[in-house]
């Protein structure tokens, strides 16, 4: 046997066991201290938390005056948030100047809305079509008569008295339900081959998207009365809704156009080859796919609309934010160092809950409708 020099005769030493990849320590090693820079950032972050969390906790809970507190407690040195102010003015924040004995009417509207909306949002709930008709057609009419009164022996309550969260919700629900179909029509018009229709849609979309909502609301409040025949008065509510809806529908149109452009030509051609009419092609083949692509964009527009309702003070409506601001400025009996801050924080929390809820729901829907395009 020849001597083969490069064949080892002894065993290689066993390698050390691999590092632990599970458990708290390994997690901290990987996510908090993987490099010196990482460790420094972690320390900075922890310092920041130590700096900011205790005062915030003190303001919101530790030193805060609870819902049953008094204004004297709120005026004390070092007092935190004045939740007593919120709980005592809650009625105004929700209903505005709506007559107190009649507040059961908005309550019914709220309850009915929740009752109809929840099954509409839960994908497994049955009777979707009936439910949608009830929510989109019957419910608005019923709510209008219930809130405005003047029929069935209900006392009439003019829209000037409506306010607070009630107004915010009404404007956003109507705005959302109207701006989506309007946006779809505008988007289809923009894709149309007919030059006049295309021009009209493009100029509307571009004009509206170019200017701030505040100028459109200015227009609605100052110029709409000029445009109408003499003697017509337009309800402030209607002005606000028209302004917000038109504004959002232009953005909605652009979102949906993105979806339409993402549909391959073959789908259009296949639908034509089946002999479907234009509206059949759009409503059965193209739009279901297009809208599915752009659900996040659509919900973002809804969220933007919901936030934009805070601008309706320009046409003189008292929405949630205006109600809070009015109370902050005028409720002298609640004046203290933190009253205004607490009021704005309360309004922010309400807006945040609605907007964050919508965005989470859109993520949920996106995952549910994801039919395998995403890898």
């Amino acid at each position, binding site marked *: 046997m020849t001597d083969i020099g490069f064949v080892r005769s002894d065993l290689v030493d066993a390698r050390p066991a691999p590092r632990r990849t599970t458990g708290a320590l390994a997690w901290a090693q990987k996510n908090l201290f993987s490099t010196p820079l990482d460790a420094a950032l972690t320390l900075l972050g922890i310092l920041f938390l130590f700096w900011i969390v205790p005062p915030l906790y003190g303001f919101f809970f530790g030193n805060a005056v609870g819902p049953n507190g008094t204004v004297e407690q709120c005026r004390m040195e070092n007092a935190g948030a004045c939740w007593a102010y919120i709980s005592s003015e809650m009625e105004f924040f929700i209903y505005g100047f709506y007559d107190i004995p009649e507040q059961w009417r908005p309550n019914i509207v709220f309850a009915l809305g929740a009752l109809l909306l929840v099954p509409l949002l839960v994908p497994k709930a049955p009777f979707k079509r009936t439910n949608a008709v009830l929510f989109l057609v019957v419910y608005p009419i019923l709510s209008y008569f219930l809130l405005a009164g003047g029929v069935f022996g209900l006392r009439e309550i003019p829209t000037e008295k409506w306010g607070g969260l009630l107004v915010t919700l009404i404007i956003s629900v109507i705005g959302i339900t109207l701006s989506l179909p309007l946006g779809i029509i505008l988007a289809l018009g923009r894709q149309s081959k007919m030059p006049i229709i295309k021009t009209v849609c493009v100029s509307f979309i571009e004009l509206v998207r170019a200017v*701030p909502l505040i*100028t459109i609301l200015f227009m609605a409040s100052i110029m709409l009365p*000029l445009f109408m025949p003499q003697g017509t008065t337009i309800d402030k509510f209607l002005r606000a809704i028209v302004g917000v809806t038109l504004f959002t529908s232009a953005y909605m149109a652009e979102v949906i156009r993105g979806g339409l452009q993402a549909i391959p030509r073959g789908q259009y051609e296949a639908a034509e080859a089946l002999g479907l009419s234009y509206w059949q092609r759009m409503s059965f083949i193209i739009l279901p796919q297009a809208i599915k692509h752009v659900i996040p964009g659509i919900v973002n527009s809804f969220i933007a609309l919901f936030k934009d309702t805070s601008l309706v003070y320009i046409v003189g409506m008292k929405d949630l934010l205006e109600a809070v*601001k009015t109370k902050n400025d005028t409720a002298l009996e609640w004046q203290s160092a933190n009253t205004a801050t607490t009021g704005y*924080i309360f309004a922010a929390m309400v*807006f945040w809950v609605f907007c*964050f809820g919508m965005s989470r729901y859109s993520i949920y829907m996106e995952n549910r409708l994801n039919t395998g395009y995403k890898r």
Partner: protein
Amino acid sequence: MTTQELGHQSAPRVRFFNDPVIRGIIYQVVVAVVLVGFIFWIVGNTAANLAAQNKTTGFDFLWKTAGFDISFSLLPWSRGSYYWEAFLVGLINTLLVAFIGIICATILGFTLGIARLSSNFIISSLATIYIELIRNIPLLLQLFFWYFAVLKAMPAVRDSIALPFDSFINQRGIFVPKPLPDAQFGFVWIGLAVAVIAVVVLRQWAKKRLEATGQRFPVFLTSLAILIGVTGLVWLVSGANVGFEPPVLERFNFRGGLALPPEFVALAFGLTIYTASFIAETVRAGIQSVNRGQTEAAQSLGLKDNDRLRLVIVPQAMRVIIPPLTSQYLNLTKNSSLGAAIGYPELVNVFAGTSLNQTGRAIECIAITMVVYLSFSLITSAIMNWYNGRVRLVER
């Protein structure tokens, strides 16, 4: 002959209202007629309404004396100024707050967007909390918060809070020292301009050399050295000096220094905070849109970390980031109109608000305001189209 028969077969008879071409024409005519009729109706109503209110129309009011005060103006402004000057003051105030907001929001937004993608748990959670919190609260509410709950709740002038560098903050805003460059300081600006030109020339030369010979030149460090060196040298040689005039507390208010009114501070701050959260999401989406394979391919080409980012990742991410980023800039500019709600004298407040109320020329004022925003938007989209054309993926 069958073929001939087929060729002679006339097109199937279609009723004219089922012909798509004719239908299209009919639809369009109907739309056009309705639209024109609607416009005529509106114009007629408006004319009747204006006549009934004895109002005149036209742009002659622009050359009349405005006679109101504007609290914050970069241009000289007095009660005797004309309405067109009020328009200019508003426009410049809008541009000023938009400019400052865009710069700050970009810095903050990019930082947050990168932080949200960080592998560090604490950093990414903090960024996520910030973004989700700020994005879901209306901007107007945030502006009210900063203005009424924070800045207006600051102590009165006598108890001003002292900040570093001789600055003070109180109910009436922030007071900072005013830089007073002396006569020689002009040379420093000239030096800076020369340095910038030198850097541009250097970059082009380095690029040419790289393409011709493949040799690299440390462009960044050299540029930095030129910028600092040349400017600093000129500064030293010319003996230029910048004095600072600190704000001094007198009996009722601060004198001297640079006063930033609370409206401006609240609006710039609010716009920055709000828009940064949107920019952060844009940046995150852009970075995530670059396929992992690109990083791996760059590594296998042997590029260093730095070059990989600079030559492969960032250019591709920027192509995705820039279009939504510009629309965020545009949004910020449009959102600056909310300054009207906290009394910052920007375009909507000064022109579509005060001027409109005083002159009663609703149509003219709103139209001019809208045209201004429309032209911002058109200019931006023109630049964007040019940019998109430049960076578009060239496919087969």
